[in-house]
């Protein structure tokens, strides 16, 4: 009984905090239509400031609790809300769903970055509960702390207050009306910006309150843990379907109780070692479950948006040329780059390969996936286990496994490609058999003890691709009917699940595959000690272990091949079906498109690409840890920067990956180098260095995430003139000069800086020259498409149009026919 009371009270208290946070989330969502991913981060930030004011010895500290509370909740958090609304969120009405997700994610990363920057050292910061740790009262045999009591009372009070505000006051009703139709609110005579501002103020204050209340329950302040804890409020918010406040409140309490009772039953996770991390995942499991049980959204037609994304598909020919150019440029760079820089660059390209999975899934098919790195992590883990990690009695188990996976994979994908019945089966089975052959004969897994190989094998990568592909299908299966934000949240839940349940898993798994060997065939430790040493590959007679250049080129070639495959896919029937599904699910359904099959296959393919990329990327890094590089936050960062790059383009994936993996780190290094060279400006360079390191990605996201087409298209538009027929001469001259400069560099006649200083201007100048030339030619031809837009069409214009459209002969035929008839 005492235990029951204790765990109930703990659950109620933590549930009340979830409720406060989720109610704040719902208020901003219902009034702005934006799901504030930064909500948890705002709470985390407020908790840090509160700690600073109350307990820090160096600055602040010793503020009395009421004053510190009032300062944080009435001044800091509301100002954050005002800033967010005025600077960031205001322009988001009418933008695409992706943009509405990316901007709050960028804001969240910005808060995490700022907090990491300001509170840099690893000092342990322990906030105290209200009235100290010893203030408690008795209920039966159980003790209830004053902090817990305050939390519950405040939560109930706030819930009632907000309900009254939103349903019974005019400003509250206006806040809700703004979501329905901003323009109509104006026509009714009210300024929608004012009510949106109020809702952001309330939302941030509630997030801050939740952060302050929850931090004493966690021990030392931790940026990511605090941010993620308020993420648990997402589940409660979804429980209230993002609009119903009482249900949201109850949802928060229920989640708190569920977590607390699980702790009770499992002895804080000790009873079942496999499930030891489950308590951290219960809220996201609930989130996933609620999303799936929610009534199905009606198929919608194409929505009219302010900002349209326009993704053009490049022709196959130009893509192949660009692909070759890319590989040539990367190979050309290798002789002049130090290994350190090669490694940075290959890291970026590794992320780019994973980002390609988002181009397919989000850019082409319009399905939002916030867990790209979870699939990549599964891929890396599978490759590791296949090649190194496991103890195997007989390799036949692996062979069977990969054949079955290949069969399933081929079936899923091919059926969506339009293969039917006999053809489908024949093809799938032959692909499965080919896999079996590869794995057994060419890669020698039938013998005993393939484990502890010292290099990554082709079949290891293949198995990684297959396993993550099937994992993608498994995740997609329940989530098939979700779209947009809801799908994003479901995948987000999956990413957190993988973070907690897979990366933190220390158990040993033994499998007995029937008919082979005796006893347990395969034994492996899932995530050994929180770090895995990934092997480098060793195939085609090349040893990639010590040769970073070869690894870089391998990654570049892999990227190019997958990118070309995606462009080919986009131009096929399958690609057009994806576009149709993205533009208007309703129209696609009426055309008889089987969207279930389509979605399942595109999820499978995308997850497989991510898994492949993950395996290669991890192999390049040589090691993966439980907290890097495949965690949920890194996934959000990569997603954000891919959108910045242009999620509808493979080049956008390249830019996103390189920005994420290379650019900010290299820039940081650059400034760090400057600060050691120029000691007197040390403070300035250190500041710039820290800025790039902590805030670079977030600032890029906030600044550029709004352009739904990404920066890839702008960059390519700039260089497009070079590809035109007229500028072929300029192109040849440019390539010749750059190649000769390159030869000078490789033969060590000039240094790297001279190379850069020579080749970049040549690139720019030749683009400018080509642009000038094509402009001159364009001026000679009239823009006949634009005739008649500004002025009336004259007879002369009409004759010109006829000539351009080749209608002259047609018209004269008509006239002569009329003449004859008369």
């Amino acid at each position, binding site marked *: 009984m005492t235990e029951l009371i204790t765990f109930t009270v703990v659950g109620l208290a933590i549930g009340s905090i979830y409720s406060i946070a989720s109610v704040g989330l719902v208020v901003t969502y219902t009034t702005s239509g934006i799901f504030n991913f930064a909500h948890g981060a705002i709470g985390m930030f407020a908790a840090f400031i509160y700690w600073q004011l109350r307990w820090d010895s160096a600055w602040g500290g010793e503020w009395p609790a009421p004053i510190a509370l009032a300062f944080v909740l009435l001044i800091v958090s509301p100002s954050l809300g005002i800033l967010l609304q005025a600077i960031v969120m205001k322009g988001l009405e009418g933008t695409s769903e992706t943009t509405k997700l990316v901007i709050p994610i960028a804001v969240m990363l910005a808060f995490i970055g700022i907090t990491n920057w300001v509170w840099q050292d690893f000092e342990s910061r322990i906030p105290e509960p209200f009235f100290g740790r010893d203030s408690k009262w008795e209920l039966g045999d159980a003790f209830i702390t004053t902090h817990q009591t305050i939390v519950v009372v405040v939560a109930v009070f706030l819930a009632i207050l907000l309900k009254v505000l939103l*349903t019974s006051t*005019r400003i509250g*009703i206006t806040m809700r*009306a703004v979501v329905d*139709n901003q323009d*109509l609110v104006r*026509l009714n005579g009210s300024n929608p910006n004012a009510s949106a501002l109020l809702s952001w103020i309330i939302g941030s204050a509630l997030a801050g309150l939740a952060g302050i209340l929850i931090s004493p329950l966690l021990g030392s302040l931790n940026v990511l843990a605090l941010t993620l804890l308020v993420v648990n409020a997402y589940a409660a918010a979804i429980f209230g379907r993002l609009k119903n406040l009482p249900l949201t409140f109850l949802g928060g309490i229920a989640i708190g109780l569920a977590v607390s009772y699980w702790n009770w039953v499992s002895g804080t996770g000790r009873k079942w070692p496999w499930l030891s991390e489950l308590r951290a995942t219960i809220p996201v499991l609930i989130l996933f479950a609620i999303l799936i049980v929610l009534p199905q959204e009606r198929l919608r037609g194409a929505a009219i948006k302010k900002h349209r994304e326009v993704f053009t598909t490049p022709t196959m020919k130009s893509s192949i040329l660009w692909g070759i150019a890319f590989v040539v440029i990367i190979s050309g760079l290798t002789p002049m780059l130090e290994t350190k820089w090669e490694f940075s660059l290959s890291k970026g390209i590794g992320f780019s390969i994973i980002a390609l999975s988002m181009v397919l899934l989000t850019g082409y098919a319009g399905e939002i996936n916030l867990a790209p790195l979870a699939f990549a992590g599964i891929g890396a883990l599978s490759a590791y286990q296949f090649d190194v990690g496991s103890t195997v009695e007989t390799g036949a188990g692996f062979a069977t496994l990969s054949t079955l996976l290949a069969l399933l994979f081929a079936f899923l994908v091919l059926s969506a490609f339009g293969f039917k019945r006999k053809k489908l089966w024949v093809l799938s089975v032959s692909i499965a058999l080919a896999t079996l052959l590869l794995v057994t004969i060419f890669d020698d897994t039938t013998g005993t003890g393939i484990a502890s190989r010292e290099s990554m094998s082709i079949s290891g990568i293949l198995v990684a691709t297959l396993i993550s592909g099937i994992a993608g299908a498994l995740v997609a299966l329940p989530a098939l009917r979700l779209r947009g934000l809801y799908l994003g949240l479901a995948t987000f839940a999956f990413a957190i699940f993988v973070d907690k349940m897979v990366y933190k898993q220390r158990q040993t798994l033994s499998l007995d595959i029937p008919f082979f060997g005796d006893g347990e065939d395969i034994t492996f430790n899932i995530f050994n000690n929180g770090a895995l040493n990934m092997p480098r590959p060793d195939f085609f007679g090349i040893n990639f272990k010590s040769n970073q250049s070869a690894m870089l080129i391998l990654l570049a070639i892999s990227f190019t091949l997958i990118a070309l495959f995606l462009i080919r896919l986009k131009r096929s029937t399958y690609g057009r079906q994806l576009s149709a599904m993205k533009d208007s699910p309703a129209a696609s359904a009426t055309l008889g498109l089987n969207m279930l099959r389509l979605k399942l296959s595109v999820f499978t393919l995308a997850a497989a690409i991510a898994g492949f990329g993950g395996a290669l990327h991890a192999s390049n890094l040589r090691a993966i840890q439980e907290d890097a590089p495949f965690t949920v936050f890194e996934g959000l960062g990569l997603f954000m920067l891919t959108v910045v790059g242009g999620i509808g383009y493979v080049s956008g994936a390249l830019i996103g990956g390189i920005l994420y993996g290379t650019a900010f780190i290299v820039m940081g290094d650059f400034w760090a180098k400057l600060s050691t060279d120029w000691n007197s400006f040390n403070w300035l360079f250190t500041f710039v260095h820290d800025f790039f390191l902590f805030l670079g990605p977030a600032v890029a996201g906030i600044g550029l995430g709004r352009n739904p087409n990404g920066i890839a298209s702008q960059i390519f538009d700039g260089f497009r003139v070079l590809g035109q027929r007229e500028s072929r001469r300029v192109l040849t001259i440019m390539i010749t000069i750059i190649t000769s400069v390159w030869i000078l560099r490789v033969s060590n006649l000039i240094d790297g800086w001279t190379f850069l200083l020579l080749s970049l201007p040549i690139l720019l100048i030749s683009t400018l020259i080509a642009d000038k030339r094509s402009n001159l030619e364009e001026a000679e031809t009239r823009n006949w498409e634009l005739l008649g837009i500004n002025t009336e069409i004259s007879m002369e214009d009409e004759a010109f149009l006829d000539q351009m459209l080749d209608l002259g002969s047609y018209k004269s035929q008509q006239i002569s026919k009329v003449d004859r008839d008369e």
Partner: protein
Amino acid sequence: MDKPLLELENVSTGYGIIPVLHGINLSVGKGDIYALLGPNGGGKSTILKVCSRQIDPWAGSVKVAGRSIEGIAAEDLAKAGVCTIPEGKGIFPNLTVEENLIMMTHACQSLQAIQSVTFERFPQLGNKRNQLAGTLSGGEQQMLSMSRALSTNPKLLLLDELSMGLAPIIVKDLYGIVSQLAEEGIGVLVVEQFARTVLGVATRAGILINGKIISEGSPAELEDQLSDAYLGTKGNV
């Protein structure tokens, strides 16, 4: 005659770089019902958006009661007595009927006054005051949006496609209200594709094609030109 309630002088505008209206001249006086007719894509709704300050004119001037409305916020114009009922139902679907009425109080009327006018004119809305507006029938939704015109005492009423998707009998009823409002001295500018109904109540009419008013006159005069305008036999010359 005193100043017209709404006066457009040589107004041109468009969206982004695409021009829609080319030099519109138009005036609506007290008690007038000006019917703006024409086929799709002619710029009818754009004229209403310029008048209600939802978009800026590129050139020319828009005057309400003799004063230029340049730089005035849309919400202030609404408060000053310009009531715009936009295309599609001008209601908030996720608010209840009652909450929709509360939103109308932003135009400086008391809730009691709005409720009594609305429920007297449309008793069926009174029975559904706690129902979500989005779940009302199409006709009821249009009634709810019209009740803003009725109850907030506007001086100028701008109506966009009142008849859209409604049964003829309801349309007739709604236009009855419009002419009643005009008799009380309100100026009305109504945009319609469904021309015959509105010509019955209009005092003046204009045909708008490709961003220009190609002819203007009494409803009877325009009736003959309508089929030409809609079928495009004359319009594009």
